[in-house]
């Protein structure tokens, strides 16, 4: 690899790569994102590579292992350029056939095409699939297009041109102004204006400053940061180098979750490549700007997603947050000015510089600009990552893009913002999703997780789930969070187990208020949100648990009774044999019954009954 000593060198390299690729007739893009990988995407990449190599056709056909395409429900995904033929649920045994018909010839493999469930029509091209057609992809666009481990591919697509633009004459203040004009707000949850943060950090006193990328994506159900860092690490790195230039930082850190080993690997590889090209280190692109950065792994603590806890962890301390009266932009890591943004925010920077802040600000709503990536998961047909402009109605996300709820079930709510967020109920399905609207509805943007819940989900159980999460993850530094959340958890467990007493709901409300007022950090203050929002919209379900000892969604086990329908039971005895607790009794060919005392409500009997004779009450 040659070192790039000037901006002209970068342009020349780009031309050279494009020149080399002129012989390529078709490009096969295989998704190596987290969803597709768990279905064998990585093996698929190798299989395609081997086949093309064996045919000595690498000059004409290029195999690219990309990042996440977003449509995880249909993975593993293979797309063949230039026609962008979209094949879904591809397995290794189909590789030869795809190459034969769609790579070396211009035919289609019909049964691997996407079928629109509405019309029954087969759709050939990627962008014509409703899931993609309704999105507005800006930040997340390159992830499915770029070879995630090759810097040359990123450069050939215009990568590092924003950095070149910045270094070829923009003053740091001008860069900050551009980000301020864009109206970019922190994508990690807080929604603080990034430009303002950068400006404060630039103005802060201190020789040595840091930029930090928060890739400790702990919000369960959100994985856009993982997809970005794995798929387009250079986009994040470029954003950070630009940020470092604007702020005057010399060193940067990516703090990545331990649970994302592939993201750590790809980020490290990308840093090495950038260093070899002289895009990191001393004298970047021949200028006098010096900056280098490193990847640090977390160790499985949710609290380290909080900025001050993250910095404590980087210093080798326990990941405990501190009070907000000292700002990290003035005294952060090692008490030096530090600017922390999350992965998606950093990844937005190159686009903003290339297209201008005004362009970015023209997308979105009055106070929430640009687009946002959401991970739409849970009880939804088209699970995956979705990028839409701010202010897109929830209905469009759930139905037009998400394809609605599986099994004809009724939509109940969307949980957003993870353990700090809340639930948006069915009656607010037309809500225009942005920072303000979500907050008004009692939830929050968070990092963009959207967990779709259907009628089979118990909202008290959802609250219990998040409280359990928070009890485990509370760092224990302040009393309201350490003790208060625990008491809330106990109260909600009592409700789920039929031990609740009248007045418990009021106690819960009181605890919610106290913790919101008194906890130390943002995560503590927002810890009661899952309870507060479900109480606001689903109070009837809490009442059913407390007063009637009944779980309307039939989820809370201690409140359920398994019953065998005497009319349907044929006495086949299968349930009796399968029951792990020997709780089912009955003679052969006679109606069986369940001993409620022994029954552990595991549901194995229902799964095995061929006559639908067992039901829950």
């Amino acid at each position, binding site marked *: 690899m040659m070192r790039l000593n000037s901006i002209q060198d970068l342009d020349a390299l780009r031309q050279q790569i494009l020149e080399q690729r002129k012989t390529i007739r078709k490009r096969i893009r295989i998704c190596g994102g*987290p*969803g597709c990988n768990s279905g064998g995407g990585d093996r698929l990449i190798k299989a395609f590579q081997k086949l093309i190599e064996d045919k000595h056709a690498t000059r004409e056909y290029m195999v690219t292992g990309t990042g996440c395409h977003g449509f995880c429900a249909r993975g593993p995904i293979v797309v063949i350029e230039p026609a962008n033929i979209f094949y879904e649920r591809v397995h290794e045994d189909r590789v030869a056939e795809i190459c034969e018909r769609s790579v070396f010839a211009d035919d289609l493999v019909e049964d691997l095409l996407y079928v629109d469930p509405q019309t029954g029509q087969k759709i050939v091209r990627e962008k014509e699939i409703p899931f993609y057609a309704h999105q507005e992809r800006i930040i997340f666009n390159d992830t499915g297009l770029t070879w995630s481990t090759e810097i040359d591919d990123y450069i050939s697509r215009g990568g590092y041109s924003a950095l070149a633009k910045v270094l070829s004459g923009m003053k740091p203040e001008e860069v900050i102004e551009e980000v301020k004009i864009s109206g970019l707000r922190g994508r990690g949850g807080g929604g603080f204006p990034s430009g303002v943060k950068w400006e404060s950090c630039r103005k802060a006193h201190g020789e040595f400053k840091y930029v930090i990328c928060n890739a400790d994506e702990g919000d*369960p159900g959100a994985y856009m940061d993982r997809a970005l860092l794995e798929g387009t690490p250079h986009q994040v790195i470029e954003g950070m180098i630009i940020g470092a230039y604007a702020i005057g930082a010399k060193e940067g850190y990516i703090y990545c979750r331990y649970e994302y080993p592939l993201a750590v690997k790809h980020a490290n590889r990308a840093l090495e490549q950038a260093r070899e090209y002289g895009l990191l280190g001393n004298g970047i692109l021949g200028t006098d700007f010096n900056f280098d950065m490193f990847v640090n792994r977390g160790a499985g603590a949710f609290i380290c997603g909080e900025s001050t806890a993250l910095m404590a962890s980087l210093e080798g301390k326990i990941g405990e947050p501190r009070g907000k009266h000292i700002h990290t932009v003035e005294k952060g890591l090692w008490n030096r000015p530090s600017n922390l943004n999350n992965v998606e925010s950093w990844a937005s920077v190159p686009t903003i510089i290339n297209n201008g802040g005004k362009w970015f600000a023209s997308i979105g709503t009055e106070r929430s600009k640009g687009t946002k990536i959401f991970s739409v998961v*849970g009880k939804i047909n088209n699970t995956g990552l979705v990028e839409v402009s701010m202010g897109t109605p929830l209905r469009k996300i759930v139905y037009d893009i998400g394809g609605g709820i599986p099994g004809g079930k009724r939509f109940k709510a969307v949980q957003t913002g993870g353990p700090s967020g809340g639930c948006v109920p069915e009656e607010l399905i037309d809500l225009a999703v942005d920072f303000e609207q979500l907050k008004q509805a009692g939830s929050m943007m968070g990092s963009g997780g959207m967990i779709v819940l259907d009628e089979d989900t118990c909202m008290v159980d959802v609250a219990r789930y998040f409280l359990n999460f928070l009890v485990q993850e509370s760092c224990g530094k302040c009393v309201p969070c350490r003790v208060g959340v625990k008491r809330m958890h106990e109260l909600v467990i009592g409700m789920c187990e039929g031990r609740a007493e009248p007045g418990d709901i009021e106690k819960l409300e009181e605890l919610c208020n106290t913790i919101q007022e008194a906890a130390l950090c943002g995560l503590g203050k927002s810890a009661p949100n899952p309870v507060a929002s479900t109480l606001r919209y689903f109070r009837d379900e809490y009442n059913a648990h407390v007063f009637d000892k009944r779980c309307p969604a039939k989820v809370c086990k201690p409140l359920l009774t398994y019953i065998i329908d005497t009319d349907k039971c044929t006495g086949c005895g299968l349930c009796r044999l399968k029951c792990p607790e020997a709780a089912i009794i009955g003679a052969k060919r006679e109606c069986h019954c369940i001993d409620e005392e022994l029954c552990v409500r595991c549901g194995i009997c229902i799964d095995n009954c061929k006559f639908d004779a067992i039901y829950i009450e």
Partner: protein
Amino acid sequence: MEFSLQEVDAIIDQWGPTPSSLLQIMLDINHHFNYLPKESVERVAERLRMPISQVFGVANFFKVFSLKPRGRFIMHVCTGTACHVKGGPKIIERLEQEVNLKPGETSEDLFLTLETVNCVGACASAPVVVVGDTTYSEVTAGKVPALLKELKDQEAQRS
């Protein structure tokens, strides 16, 4: 993996004996020996010139570290929100029945450690179970016995 102080030193030297490397050093030791041996914690504190209480504090605080030996297979059942609503808890219940382990426990023969993880970011494949580098997607309680058998077979092949 037999404990050896040289290997601990090698890991420390790779990152440099400074407090800012503490977490990275401990992660590598934890990975290398499959847990954090007590002697390694003492060595790290000594070499990094940190109070041993702080090193133990960090070891206790972060979920990834184990101060007890763990199984040859470490099974992480995802308890993220998407996995939770799609039946993740049923997988844990079934595992408890099959192998008689609760999350955080290791079987006596050191075959298996059962752990939970709050989201691995493979929500589209929910519910998921991660063993080593492999992510098993759309796992149901019914698939648990087959998964356990697969691990047993893998071990038989290794030896």
